[in-house]
């Protein structure tokens, strides 16, 4: 069966009475269910789960997997997502029974290895951030952001201040303003200057005593390091506000500069971006945060602590803590992978990773220019870039009649995952390209050739790109109908 053939769902497969699971005998004297669970507390209709054999399950999901593009198979220059190689060593160590089968409520006597790993990881992340205290608890970047803004609130309230606004640049990731609202603050947008950085006049005008915090990504989502960062920090701190660092782009600067040294009070890390946790089709990730001394009293509990006897423990006695943001201690499996990565690379290797990430991005940008691609896809801001860069597809749309979306869809036919498209929002027809450090020069050269070829083809016949992709398991999908008349589960008979 060809992979392009439409797939039945698991609920459309199987036959009544078919099964994979064999229930072990209870081994105990059995009593009627009604004696143990009164009828009115029992389910009326059992869940209609699939009735399939194990071989059917395996074949179904293996076939489905082949209808995915994945990082192990091809180039994935998805801007702001840092699709770097996922070392398999990390999967092996995360799966060790001492990690994988460790219960989160195991007594500290029986979880010393896990607590030590968390403690060591906290220390390493603190050094990378240039901020002394770390909580590993948040489950993702946006969860770390929520922690950060709630910490900001706790900090101001403890000082007897009530502030209502949080500043976010118009280039910010969508999670920033969404988080601000969830944390009960009002979003105030700050403009971007012609160089692609924060508009300092706008910031000065809006940074008043009602502002709790500025959330900033640096390098920002345009791939540019804000050269006025010291001035920004001084304006924000001058207003008594907190400076928050969205660590989505940390991969550009490891070992070269640190958020703490730039004046940031709170940083979140995306372990699934910078530190190789596999993306898994959209998660899991983890979003630990590092904070300055003045924020430390409010950090989430529990904290990992070390007693005088050298033993590790969990500390719940933090009277000013904002409390918990989730169950247990965070995504520990992700911590194991991150710790393995940091120990593999060391200081020198982490610095090398950032250097090559920036080198690769600038090389790709230079090669596109060499090929004249910049006439149709100019760099949106600046001359050089950090670890990623933004092109505008506006001239291409005007000259060739194909949109950024069409270019992206045609890349799929060339076996390349497209960059992030239509983000950041302030660039017309944006393409955000992040090659990462783990790609070879040959891969980057091929990607340039692919873009050149698609543009050449579009000059002759734009219809090919407009109707792309042509070689994928399905063609363009009707998203409008999917949203208007949502079908979000299988009808089961």
């Amino acid at each position, binding site marked *: 069966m060809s992979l392009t053939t439409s*797939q039945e*769902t698991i609920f459309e497969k199987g036959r009544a009475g078919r*099964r*994979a699971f064999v229930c072990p005998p209870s*081994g*105990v004297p059995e009593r009627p269910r009604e004696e143990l669970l009164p009828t009115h*507390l029992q389910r009326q*209709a*059992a869940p209609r*789960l*699939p009735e*399939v054999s*194990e071989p059917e*399950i395996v074949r179904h999901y293996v076939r*489905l997997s*082949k209808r*995915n593009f994945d990082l192990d198979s091809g180039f994935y220059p998805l801007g702001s997502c840092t699709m770097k190689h996922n070392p398999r060593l990390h999967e092996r160590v*995360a799966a060790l029974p*001492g990690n*994988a089968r*460790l*219960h*989160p409520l195991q007594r500290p006597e*029986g979880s010393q*290895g*896990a607590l030590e790993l968390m403690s060591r990881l906290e220390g390493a992340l603190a050094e990378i951030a240039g901020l002394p205290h770390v909580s590993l608890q948040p*489950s*993702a970047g946006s*969860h770390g952001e929520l922690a950060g803004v*709630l910490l900001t609130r706790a900090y101001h309230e403890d000082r007897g201040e009530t502030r209502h606004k949080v500043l976010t640049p118009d280039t910010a*990731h969508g*999670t920033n303003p969404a988080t601000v*609202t*969830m*944390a009960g603050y009002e979003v105030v947008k700050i403009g971007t200057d012609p160089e692609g950085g924060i508009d300092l006049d706008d910031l000065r005008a809006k940074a008043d005593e009602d502002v709790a915090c500025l959330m900033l990504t640096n390098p920002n989502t345009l791939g540019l390091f804000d050269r006025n*960062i010291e001035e920004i920090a001084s304006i924000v701190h001058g207003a008594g506000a907190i400076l928050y660092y969205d660590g989505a782009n940390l991969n550009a600067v490891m070992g070269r500069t640190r958020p703490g040294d730039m004046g940031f009070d709170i940083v979140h890390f995306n372990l699934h971006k910078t530190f190789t946790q*596999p993306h898994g*089709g*959209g*998660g*899991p990730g983890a979003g630990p945060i590092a904070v300055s001394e003045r924020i430390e009293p409010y950090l989430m509990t529990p904290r990992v602590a070390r007693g005088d006897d050298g033993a590790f*423990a969990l500390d719940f006695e933090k009277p000013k803590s904002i*409390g918990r943001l989730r*169950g247990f201690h965070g995504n*520990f*499996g*992700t911590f194991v992978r991150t710790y393995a990565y940091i120990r*593999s*690379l060391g*200081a020198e*290797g982490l610095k090398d*990773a950032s250097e*090559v990430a920036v*080198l690769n991005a600038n090389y790709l940008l230079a090669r596109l220019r060499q090929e004249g691609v910049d006439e149709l896809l100019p760099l949106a801001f600046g001359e050089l870039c950090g670890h990623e860069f933004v092109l505008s597809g506006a001239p291409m749309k005007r000259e060739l009649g194909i949109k950024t979306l069409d270019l992206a*869809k045609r890349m799929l036919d060339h076996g390349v995952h497209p960059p992030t498209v239509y983000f950041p929002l302030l660039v017309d027809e944006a393409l955000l390209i992040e090659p990462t450090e783990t790609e070879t020069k040959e891969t980057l050269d091929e990607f340039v050739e692919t873009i050149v070829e698609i543009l050449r083809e579009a000059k002759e016949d734009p219809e090919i790109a407009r109707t792309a*992709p042509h070689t994928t*398991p399905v063609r363009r*999908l009707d998203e409008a109908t999917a*949203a208007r008349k*949502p079908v979000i589960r299988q009808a089961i008979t």
Partner: protein
Amino acid sequence: MSRYTAVSPEDRKEMLAAIGVESVDELFDRLIPAPVRLGRDLELPEGMGEQDVYAHLRDLAAANLSTEDEVSFLGAGMYDSYVPALIDMLMSRSELLTPYTPYQPEVSQGNLQIMFEYQTAISELTALPVSNASVYEGPSALAAAGYLAKLANKKSRFVISRGAHPHSRETLRTVARGYGVEVVEVPLRDGVTDPDAWAAAIDDETSAVFFQNPNFLGAVEDAAALAAAAKDSPAVVIGQYDPIALGILAAPGECGVDVAVGEGQQLGNRLDFGGPSFGFFAATEAYLRQMPGRIAGETTDLDGKRGFVLTLQTREQHIRRERATSNICTSQALNALGGVVYLAWLGRQGIVELADLLLQRTAYARERLSAVEGIELLHSQPAVREFAVTLDAPVEAVVDYCAARGVNPGLPLAPYYEEHPGGLLVAITEQRTREEIDRLAELLAEAIAAAGSGAGGANGHTAGALA
């Protein structure tokens, strides 16, 4: 030292030439202003080769006592359930392990269809028509449901049962403080939510009511009665559920529950010292457009062929920004994959059989333990897979005694419920056999005897660090 980069000296020269800079340092000097440059190396241990990193991580893992090293009756939200081998195989496939979120549906049909199948399975499990494609985990799922209620009715108070997981209650308080909703807790009576206090706490300002079923002490709540009590209020009725118990337990959709959430770990995911796992989140049709997180929907392509896309994205942060229904972006797709494969593996009969197995073994364990001198049931409510007892001996000493003999008897309750200083929460999974339950009863009897019967119990407890 391991590196995952591949730039040779020759490559570097050519690349720098193409860029038009002399060195990588020049590139960074032009990127980062001098005053904020780190003028030294990071203070981290030197990198190591793969086999040395493995050995170091193996040594750390060996310093833990896993459920392979002892017979564990720990539960309280995560359970030592059996993970079938086919899940390890599928979750480690490159095609499922290494893609990003399916933003390009034409090359993500595998993941999108898996999300759709997962949503269907969760809808079946909860008897609720709308499921998202997963959130982080259990307690934060409950808190996310609170935010849905706040968006839906803009009322000022949450009412939560003391039977809800302590981590859920605390997470809800943490986030609700941000957007300014008050949280009121309703006490337990005879092991379940006090129905009078529950009814009295609900009024016109109640945004949502929350309970857990079975509750933290293992007792089955009368969900239909709890939901009915909120019927004449604006409150969204939110239940946190054990997904395996739902094989036999009255389903949220059958009881008038509006939003059902829960921890998905025991559906084919490892313990992993608490994560990553996933949280499930299902609701009635009325809340479709307030749902947090990603949702996959069925549609057709240009040729009319069946396909799947991310849908209702105008709820989400990347489109709606400050007006989004949630800030969630990265969630738990790989873990949710484990969940749907597990539910398919368990199958239509299997989930009922497994829940019945737990029900029977739990009943046996309760009977066996309560026959021991110095142990009493903390409550006599129906229990599916977990139950609480009161020990007439210092709990920590009893735990130490059993642990030294290879059995972790369960979770001391005192750090969570100061009203139960002698409490112990015991969880049963399909991996805990009758022989192991018998062994637990014997060890508890010995431990209590050793502590000197009647020598403390309630007074003898020393507060642990497990709050």
